[in-house]
């Protein structure tokens, strides 16, 4: 195997693992859009807050890891329900700009809350796994990325099962499909909206733990949220398989582009290439690869 090809494989494997970790966060985005037609521009901030809660529970309160994780999950679930009840329920039926701006406002609040109540410094989020990468031929695979990818795959399968076969999942699909008909069938639409936000909270909490371990926890952790947009647009805003495929595409593309182009232009292509790809994809398939095509009537 030539050196050149080994480098390519390294970038590719890295891209796949990172891409799956993007999928985990994108999943939170898709869940909310699928069920409530709301788009969450604060997804990155959700991840940040969850990471802060867990990191602070470990470092300041000295809680064991599993307690901290449970605390993170519980607080994000409560946060998800509360958010739906207090803010988003009031915005049902309003123009898209209203929901977009509400979540942008929420993102702003969370960015202020993070440093104010949790401290401004970067906090470590230690997990009991080694830092030594697995070396397989030319590949270096950090265990945290492997863990992240596995958690991601597990949750994607779990949510896939949930939507296809569980009673609540079917009800949620009905709500997503047509709110009024779902109501007429006796489904408590608002409860499912709350449930969707709580599920997003769960996914964000896990994303916060994994990404927090990888990057350290501070306000900048929320920048992960910017990676989510190309992922969900490429895959389609309302598709779980789309989140996976989009995540893989974005992860692979940004790693390969960064590996080959960065030396020539002085860096930063990683954040930029997925968006170019996204624009091109939008021109060809306006609803993403798996997105539901909306047929409009006057």
């Amino acid at each position: 195997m030539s050196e050149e090809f080994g480098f390519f494989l390294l970038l590719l494997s890295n891209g796949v693992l990172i891409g799956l970790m993007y999928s985990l966060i994108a999943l939170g985005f898709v869940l909310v859009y699928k069920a409530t037609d709301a788009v969450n521009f604060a997804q990155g901030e959700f991840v940040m807050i969850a990471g802060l809660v867990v990191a602070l529970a470990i470092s300041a309160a000295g809680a064991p890891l599993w307690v901290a994780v449970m605390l993170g999950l519980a607080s994000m679930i409560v946060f998800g329900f509360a958010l739906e009840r207090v803010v988003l329920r009031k915005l049902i039926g309003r123009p898209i700009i209203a929901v977009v701006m509400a979540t942008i406002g929420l993102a702003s609040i969370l960015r202020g809350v993070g440093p104010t109540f949790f401290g401004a410094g970067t906090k470590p989020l230690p997990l009991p796994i080694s830092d030594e990468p697995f070396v397989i031929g030319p590949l270096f695979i950090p265990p945290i990325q492997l863990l992240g990818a596995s958690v991601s795959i597990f949750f994607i399968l779990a949510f896939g099962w949930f939507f296809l076969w569980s009673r609540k999942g079917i009800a949620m699909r009905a709500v997503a499909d047509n709110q009024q008909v779902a109501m007429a069938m006796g489904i408590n639409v608002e409860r499912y909206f709350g449930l969707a936000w709580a599920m997003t909270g769960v996914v964000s909490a896990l994303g916060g733990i994994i990404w927090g371990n990888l990057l350290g926890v501070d306000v900048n952790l929320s920048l992960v949220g910017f990676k989510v947009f190309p992922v969900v647009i490429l895959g389609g805003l309302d598709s779980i398989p789309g989140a996976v495929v989009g995540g893989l595409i974005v992860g692979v593309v940004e790693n390969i582009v960064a590996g080959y182009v960065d030396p020539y232009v002085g860096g930063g292509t990683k954040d930029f290439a997925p968006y170019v790809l996204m624009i091109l994809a939008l021109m060809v398939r306006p609803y993403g690869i798996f997105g539901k095509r909306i047929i409009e009537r006057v």
Partner: protein
Amino acid sequence: MFHRESGVLKTTYEADMALYPLPIARWTVGALAVVFFGVLPLTLDQYYLSLANLVWISVIGALGLNILVGYTGQVSIGHGAFMSVGAYTAANLAIRLGSPWPVNLLAGGLMAALVGAVVGIPSVRIKGLYLAIATLAGQLIIEWTINHVTFISGGVQASIDVPRPRLGSYVLSSQRQMYFFLLVFVVLAIVGTLNLIRSRVGRAFIAIRDQDIAAEIIGIDIFRYKLLAFAISSFYAGVTGVLYTYYLGIANYEQFQIGVSIDYLAMIIIGGLGSVLGSVLGAIFVTLLPIGIRYAMEAFGGLFFAPQTVLNLIPNLRLMMFGALIIFFLIVEPEGLNRLWRNIRNYFRIWPFAY
């Protein structure tokens, strides 16, 4: 002379569309002109004038964004980048060709309009959330391009020093001179927007906002008008960028990052979507909010916190207040400050003889 009408008594379309529906409107405009051109610049000191100048710059940008978001119903999270396009176009022209500011201003606006129209092309096929994210992509791509292409950004730190604008041999440099300079453009922007909305183009925009498929069926060329909305709106943004550059004396991409796009969206949400007065009020409100918070914290923050904590708290408090206000207005008063003002006015219209 100071009366208001007691009902809708218009019998012609001309009367309905008039800029001055009543004599009192002329008086109000006259009084405002006296205050803003005469009283304020002569009484305010340097610091308050500098605040006023920042407000004027934001007013122009907010008007432009409101044309797109409020009147045409197309969301854009890329206006900060369009401003940077205007800013760097003007700065490069000023440095490389030494061209005078009117040329740079126009060129900056037109270049931003062009870029804005290109970013708006996806709006023909996609709408709503997908469009919002596409414009976000536009913002990030433009930001990256300016930062990495040294031909545009001038290399080190991506900032370019710009000479002060001059009228003949008269150099505009003090805050007071800039105040008048900027205020002229604010007046042009307000009158321009008011007239645009009354025109055929403006009505087409509103039709597209209300129901774009229906608009297409009654014969409005959606492609053309959506791109036109993006172009006009970005022209305003470009002009804002150029003016800001001349005001600061330096073009720097950090002044036009995504936070700026969001600030302008907040201005029109808080002020009121689809309203000229709302854009102005929102721009004033959002620009002065951080300054108000700083004053309040410096005055009262010491009572609760240590001095060092207060300093750390101010930027975070600004973020929280900003977000909370956006959500507050969205839930409680979706039509913004403009609506609040109308409610107050309507209350006093029949005061003290309410039914």
